[in-house]
């Protein structure tokens, strides 16, 4: 994985992901080291982020590295009209690795073609968010003991949810059965379903979250956004149907874990937080270890 960019979840092989997850365990056991001393990592966030940016920065800081960058495009010459290509070429000279989040799809792929350092895609528009996928897999592995043969439900905005897309694609390597719960307007795109079919796996679609809760090992919740609906009345009709309350978990499996990439708005009610099956904040913490493993691998230090 040395010197390779991670732009899409399809860029690394299944074995490489398993290696990374293994390495992440070692970082979880020992997150404060000095392996990045002397290294500079650029975090270029053209779009807002709390978790992703800060967990990358925490990952680098705890390993002794230094961060440069910006957390808002308005703080860079992008506001003067500078192209992404020029920005990336410039920042390549100042850093050993670039982590970027950008609102335009394909931006990270383009950056990886013009940069002289590796690129980690921290989210390009509605397209990919591979490090989120990695930490989600890590969390699933951590809580289920294995990634194989699981029943996983994805709930909410499956059409635009890039974390859902990446996770579905990654899980097709592990004989997963997919349970897809969403309003009609927000179903999983056929380009993603294609991956499920190509691997001879099954998916089931539902509009009612209650139908899946007792069937699955992982319940992955996502936020439904009003602005994604062409018909506002349709949004009003469905908005409360995809909210998780603690009492809905009565018949859930003992090993069930509830995940959410966060930020949540109202789709997981706070009464779920004290249920031991709620795992979304632990999930966010895992982001630090997974990103440490990724950065160390790409820089050839692990």
């Amino acid at each position, binding site marked *: 994985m040395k010197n390779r960019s991670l732009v899409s979840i399809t860029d690394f092989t299944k074995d490489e992901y398993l290696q990374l997850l293994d390495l992440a365990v070692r970082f979880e056991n020992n997150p404060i080291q000095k392996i990045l001393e002397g290294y500079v990592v650029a975090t270029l966030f053209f779009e807002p982020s709390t978790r992703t940016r800060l967990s990358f920065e925490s990952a680098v800081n705890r390993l002794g590295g230094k961060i440069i960058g910006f957390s808002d495009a308005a703080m860079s010459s992008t506001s003067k009209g500078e192209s992404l290509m020029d920005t990336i070429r410039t920042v390549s000279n100042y850093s050993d690795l670039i982590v970027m989040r950008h609102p335009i799809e394909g931006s990270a792929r*383009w950056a990886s073609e013009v940069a002289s350092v590796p690129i980690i895609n921290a989210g*390009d528009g509605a397209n*990919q968010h591979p490090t989120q996928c990695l930490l989600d897999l890590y969390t699933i592995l951590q809580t289920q003991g294995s990634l194989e043969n699981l029943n996983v439900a994805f709930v909410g905005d499956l059409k635009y949810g890039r974390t859902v897309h990446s996770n579905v694609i990654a899980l097709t390597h592990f004989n997963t059965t997919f349970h897809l719960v969403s309003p009609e307007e927000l179903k999983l795109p056929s380009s993603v379903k294609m991956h499920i079919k190509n691997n001879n796996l099954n998916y089931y679609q539902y509009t009612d979250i209650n139908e899946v809760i007792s069937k699955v090992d992982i319940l992955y919740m996502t936020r439904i956004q009003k602005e994604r609906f062409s018909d506002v009345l349709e949004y009003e009709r469905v908005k409360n149907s995809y909210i998780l309350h603690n009492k809905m978990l009565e018949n859930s499996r003992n090993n069930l874990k509830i995940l959410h990439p966060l930020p949540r708005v109202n789709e997981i009610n706070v009464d779920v937080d004290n249920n031991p099956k709620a795992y979304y904040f632990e999930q966010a913490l895992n982001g630090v270890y997974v990103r440490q493993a990724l950065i160390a691998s790409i820089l050839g230090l692990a």
Partner: protein
Amino acid sequence: MTKEGRKELIVSAIQNGTVIDHIPAHAVIRVMRILGLDQCPQQVLFGINLDSRKYGKKGLIKVQDKFFDSLEINKISLVAPTATLIEIRDFEVVVKKHVEIPETVEGFIKCFNPKCITNHEQIITRFAVIDKTDLKLHCHYCEKITKKENVVFI
């Protein structure tokens, strides 16, 4: 002058070169642009709305002293899937084959996604053809699929 003779005057023979036949009438100019024939030094003749037994109306292009490799000629399959490539040497037909839709397409089709980086910066588009029968182009950058009805040429 016989009817046969008059037909010959409309579409004259070439000694060495390439004939692209059975182009949908509306696609002829597009094909010429894709192959750079609007700017090449060789003699080029084209016909639009010629009679065709097979297709009713067709278009045709003849280029003197120029031959194309499969990679180049297959680009036109996206606008002229019915086209036939004929290579002529010394007035003899030496190659006659249908164009085939290629595995990848670079440069002359726009990505349908307005939020694709290729529509914001100067980047040559690149697609993988993931379905040849019901044309689907997978963008190398934004990973979205541009379908046949949304194909726009640059």
